[in-house]
């Protein structure tokens, strides 16, 4: 494939491309940030990137949302978008909230014990209190 082909394809697959970039930004934020709070936020971005990727995989141009409200449109596959990715992502969103709450609770406990959000300082104080 030539570069022009790749760029054209990326313009068409814009949701996939954006979700990949979001995933990388979230991963970099999670690995290189020294602030625990921002690590939790970056994890949320990574979650959303995966959801965007899954949802855009099921989209087909010109079809309706998977709700059969109009009886004049028959329940054929040619008329409705596949509901499977939306079902998977719906559960994922709620699990990601559970994760956020759990991560924030851990962060809050760490802050109460070590009075810092910086992971370097927390590690240092934890090592000191071990000795």
């Amino acid at each position, binding site marked *: 494939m030539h570069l022009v082909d790749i760029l054209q394809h990326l313009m068409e697959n*814009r*949701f996939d491309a*954006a979700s990949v*970039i*979001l995933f990388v*930004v*979230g991963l*970099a*934020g999670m690995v290189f*940030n020294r*602030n625990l*709070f*921002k690590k939790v*936020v*970056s994890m*949320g*971005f990574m979650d*959303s990137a995966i*959801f*965007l990727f899954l*949802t*855009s995989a099921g*989209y087909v141009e010109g*079809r*309706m*949302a*998977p*709700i059969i409200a109009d009886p004049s449109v028959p329940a054929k596959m040619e008329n409705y*978008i596949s509901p499977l*990715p*939306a079902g998977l*992502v*719906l559960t994922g*969103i*709620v699990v*990601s*909230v559970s994760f*956020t*709450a759990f991560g*924030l609770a851990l*962060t*809050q406990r760490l*802050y109460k014990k070590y*009075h810092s*959000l910086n992971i370097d300082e927390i590690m240092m104080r934890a090592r000191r209190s071990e000795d």
Partner: protein
Amino acid sequence: MTAIEMLLLAGLIVCAIAANFTRKLLPTIIIYAAFGTMLSVIWLLLRAPDLAITEAAVGVGIDTILFLLALRSMHHMDGTEDEE
């Protein structure tokens, strides 16, 4: 339509990058809420209204409240008397 999609996707990426470069933590939370709002609009464009409603209620509402409460209990918010 494509222009709106591109604008929203660019907004998502800008939000994700900007959240890493704020000095205080309150702007990070506000950027996160903006990110969730744009994502719910994108899900309307992708014809997934279930996801749009859930994201608007959970991702924007509850997540932001949790972050703000955690921040308050860590005394990092502007306006509280002790800023460490």
